[in-house]
């Protein structure tokens, strides 16, 4: 295998349950190449958020392993074994959540510089400069000193994206980042993510927005019942799905959308 096609992320036989009765991920295998933008779709409760949370290192797993850039990242030998998470690897992954998770007691720019200053020991002045530039790029230059409560939902999500980018992630995870937004605010957030896509930022995106999925995905995974049902280019999975369950889901979601 040449290094160009070596996977950025490799998820192997990933099992995850919440407590003894709720089995959510039942043996997931996903490989993601550098530069890929994977959109994960699937029915509610199918484990999409859980998958992203596991990838972010927020959850224990039952068994399986995740490697990142060829390095072991997450592993567990079995349900009773400890989940081993390499926190150094975790720092190269950024995540934006459905619900705004900005720190409410910090101004926008303080939200952005906290991690670079505290985690990487970056000088305050340099972090502030980078933060201001990033905010300008996202059309938020004037909001640097505002508090999160003073922002619209769309602005908050753009700040959350900027905050994650301050750490120069090698992979970005987006979990339904526009679901909680008023419809008229969705586009401004999606534009920012499309802007990142143009710069070849690898990302994994969970979304119910089919327009967005089509426009951002280089690959689509349909996940249901804790396993990968279908995995392929967007034209296939969204346009002409091979699996019956995928077709049914796409029909239903498109139907609601139109």
């Amino acid at each position, binding site marked *: 295998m040449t290094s160009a096609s070596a996977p950025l992320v490799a998820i192997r036989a990933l099992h995850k349950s919440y407590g003894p009765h709720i089995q959510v991920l039942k043996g997931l295998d996903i490989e993601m190449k550098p530069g890929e933008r994977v959109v994960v779709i699937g029915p509610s409760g199918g484990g999409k958020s859980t998958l992203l949370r596991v990838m972010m290192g927020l959850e224990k797993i039952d068994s399986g392993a995740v490697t990142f850039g060829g390095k072991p990242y997450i592993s567990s030998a079995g349900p009773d074994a400890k989940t081993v998470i390499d926190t150094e690897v975790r720092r190269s992954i950024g995540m934006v959540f459905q619900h705004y998770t900005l720190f409410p007691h910090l101004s926008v720019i303080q939200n952005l510089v906290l*991690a670079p200053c505290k985690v990487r020991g970056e000088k305050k002045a340099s972090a502030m400069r980078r933060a201001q530039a990033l905010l300008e790029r996202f059309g938020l230059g004037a909001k640097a000193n505002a508090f999160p409560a003073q922002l619209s939902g769309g602005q908050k999500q753009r700040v959350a994206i900027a905050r994650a980018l301050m750490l120069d992630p090698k992979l970005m995870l987006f979990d339904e980042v526009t679901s909680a937004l008023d419809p008229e605010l969705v586009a401004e957030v999606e534009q920012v993510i499309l802007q990142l896509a143009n710069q070849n930022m690898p990302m994994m995106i969970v979304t119910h927005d089919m327009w967005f999925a089509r426009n951002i995905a280089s690959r689509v995974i349909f996940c249901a019942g804790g396993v990968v049902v279908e995995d392929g280019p967007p034209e296939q999975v969204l346009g002409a799905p091979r699996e019956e369950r995928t077709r049914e889901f796409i029909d239903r979601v498109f139907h609601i959308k139109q």
Partner: protein
Amino acid sequence: MSLDFSVLLRFQEALALGLWTTVKLTLICIVLGCSLGFLVGLARTAPNAIVRGIASVYVEFFRGTPVLIQLFWIFFCLPLILGIELSNLASGVIALTLYMGAITSETFRASLKSVGREQMDACIALGLPRRVQVMNVILPLAVLRAVPTLLSNCVSLFKESALVSAVGMADLMFVGQNISNNTARPVEVLTVVALIYFAIAFPLTRAVTLVEGRILKKLAI
């Protein structure tokens, strides 16, 4: 019965000294008690069951016994057990700090709980080390959310501190009682002492409402 408040003029200085003792004791115990309360509040959410156990025994014990018996115990029993003399102030500080710690730990526990999983997830996703999570996110958020209740806790402490007069500490209450006994004018003296307590406590309770309305709404926390 005729009232004569002028008898109090002679005792201005004594009352001021008593008030100063009350205020000093309250302020010291607010600082120490709130710090203790925060740590105990954290301990009550600790992953370690022993740490949690010790913290809740402490809290339940101090919430479940009268402050007066706590004071008496610290004043009279603790020196016997430790085999050292404790000054009045030291005993008062220890007793009221332990009381305040138990009360505020409940306040902090509630506010820590309200720093939800979402904020913690964000901390982890940003790779913040535990120390930074606590100092830069959990502590400020928990404190800000706790401020209104903490202010009420402080007002309670200020009022409860009058109990130290029972063990001979010369606080405002103690001085008031003395003057009242010496002048045989309990109505005038005790009324004025009550008004002094009220004049300090009332603005503080109003401040609670103000803080809730202004600061917390602006930050939406």
